[in-house]
């Protein structure tokens, strides 16, 4: 059986825990309980003929005081960068995190998730930076932990990339 460590990274409150929860347990809650340290979860999915177990490391979000611990990222087979569409600054944080992760684990597959897509009308995200990242080769998905939009797809996509 194949296992992969997948880290879920991003600024605080962007919906990392909610995305994992939606994906693993198909549940969502409006309550916000900030993650302390790491919360490990897992889900097995089929990619083609192979079964892959994703061990999901939901890592506490980065804030002004605490940067993400790179030790948690070590050995990751792939990762998600999560930004909150309603908070444009979280995209910049995602970019900075990516740079750091890249030096720690190298060029492993990752996806950028612009979360809270259900609140798209209140998004403050301008198009330019997003397009710039796409131009740099990033794969970007709009997701919603609340509605489940693009959640399965995001995980499946990352799994495929990690196996290829």
């Amino acid at each position, binding site marked *: 059986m194949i296992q992969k460590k997948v880290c879920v990274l991003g600024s605080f409150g962007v919906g990392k825990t909610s995305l994992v929860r939606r994906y693993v347990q198909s549940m969502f809650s409006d309550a916000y309980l900030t993650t302390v340290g*790491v919360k490990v979860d897992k889900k097995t999915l089929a990619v083609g003929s192979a079964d892959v177990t994703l061990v999901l490391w939901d890592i506490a979000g980065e804030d002004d005081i605490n940067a993400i611990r790179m030790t*948690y990222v*070590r050995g990751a087979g792939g990762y998600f960068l999560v930004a909150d569409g309603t908070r444009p600054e979280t995209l910049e944080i995602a970019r900075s995190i990516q740079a750091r992760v890249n030096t720690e684990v190298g060029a492993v597959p990752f996806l950028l998730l612009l979360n809270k897509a259900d609140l798209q009308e209140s998004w403050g995200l301008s198009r330019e930076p997003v397009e710039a990242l796409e131009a740099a080769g990033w794969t970007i998905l709009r997701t919603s932990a609340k509605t489940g939009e693009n959640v399965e797809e995001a995980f499946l996509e990352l799994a495929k990339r990690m196996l290829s």
Partner: protein
Amino acid sequence: MSSLSLSARDTPDMADTPIDEARIRRLADLLLEVARTVDPELAASVPSNFEGDPRLEALRSVLLEHDRAAFARLQQKVDDPQEFAEAVSAVLASAFALAASRDERLASILAPTMERATQASIRTNPKTMVGILYPLMGPAISKSLAETLDGTLQGLNQAFKYSFSWQGLKWRLEAYRSGSTFADVVLKHTVVFRVEHVFLIHRKTGLLLEHVAAAEAASQDPHMVSGMLSAIQDFVRDSFSSAEGGRGGGIDSLRLGDLTIWCEEGPSAFLAAVIRGNPPESLHTQLRETLGHIHEDLHGPLEQFEGDSAILGDLSTRLGSCLQQQEQPKEERLSRWLWILPLVLVIAVVSWAVSRAVEESRVDAYVQLLRDQPGVVVTGAERRDGLWHVSGLRDPLATDPAELLAKANLAPDRVAGHWEPYQALNPAILLKRMEATLSPPTDVSLVIYGNTIRARGSAPQHWVEKARAFIAALPAGSPRIDLAELQDVQDPTFIALRQAIQAHIIPFDSGSPRPARDQEPRLDKIAEELAQLIKVARGLGFSVRVTIIGHADATGRDTSNLSLSAARAEVVRSMLRARGIAPDLLSVRSAGALEPLKPDATDEEKAINRSVTLTVSTTD
């Protein structure tokens, strides 16, 4: 740089001898030339005196050609670092060996360099060094730990040495019996645990490599547990890393309620054991060794691991060896009871059998004792309804069988006797019977000689007569009773009185039934003597009977003589009765003229025959 000095040694011989200057110059030139040849620098600075002398040049080239070439080769070797290195490398090993064998200098010279090299290596890439040392470190740490632990146990041993608790004593006994140390026994009893899970976790990715669980052990998803454990390790390692930037160690032990998690870290993977209860230190060793072996055998695959555990093969049996457990002593207690129960039974059975055997042998002894008794015939002895029954024949005069029970150490309620009475002809019993029936006088002793009982001593006549009657009544086949040695002894007073009484002849007138008138005092005397005799006899334990015999002379008819003599006896009887003699002691017999006291020829004789006499007999 180099300088050349030539000095000729002055000898007195040289000083005094006139010197050929030209020869000396030539020699000097020659030497200088040799020096120039050897040292190129000198050749350059000092001009040759032979320059231009083609003969010398020719000679030189002939003489030194060979040396020159060799020298050039050497020069080349030393100047070219590559070649020089090659040359040195050929002899380096032997040179080291030689130097090392000579003294300690080489080691002390090399040591600092080696240390610096190691330090540098560790600084640049600690993993290499750890990788090299890990297979050594595991056993080394185990060993030092074992030694430390041993020390602790010795301490424990000391601590318990003077403890005289019941538990302590019991454990001491156990240690003595099993031949192990006291500390081991203490550990054995205090350490009760069970390893419920063992996780082998890849350090870099935190992914689960293998997981084994004890039967019925509940658990979270092992993948998640492994991720969380590895996250915790990362966190701790990261947070408490040393100031110099070196990585700190992870967590060795975590405690969650009565669950303990022990982590054993290796370079590529770590083992986590989830343990319920108090694990012994030996489990650490087991974990360490298991992890060490996995690292030794799977060094490459562990390095390359990226999520596909197939490259590691099946590790579950290896981890399985860590799933140790220590049973609760409760079970041991049960087994101890189980052990005691049959023992008690065996003891009971054995003691019952033994007591029965003992009792049986006592009954045997008892029966033997009975058989030895005269007058007892044992016909059977058997055990029935938990009681011994002894039956047979017994002369009533024989020993009471119940009295012999105590002699045979038997309780009276353990044996029931069933005895039929019979009369034994055994001499001993017969003797007893004689004693019981005849109550022999104290002077008489009865002694058994074989089948004969002999009476000895002296006895009164009446007793002898009684004994004779007893003997006469015995059934045929009885032992013989011999009275021959018995002497007839009577009381002299009694004999005297008897003789006196029997000597009396009371005369009667012819044809008269009444004694002559002058006979009154004689009768008084007889009565008096009789009374005394009766008294004496009573004192001796018997009674007397007096037979009054009436006689008549032969004159007249026999019939009338008979009645006359009877009448005479009756008259005497009544006269004695009148004098106070109890009539039942007096019997009367008429002899007529048939028992004359004298031949009855003369008148005097006839007068004597007309009389009454008395005979005394004794009865009991």
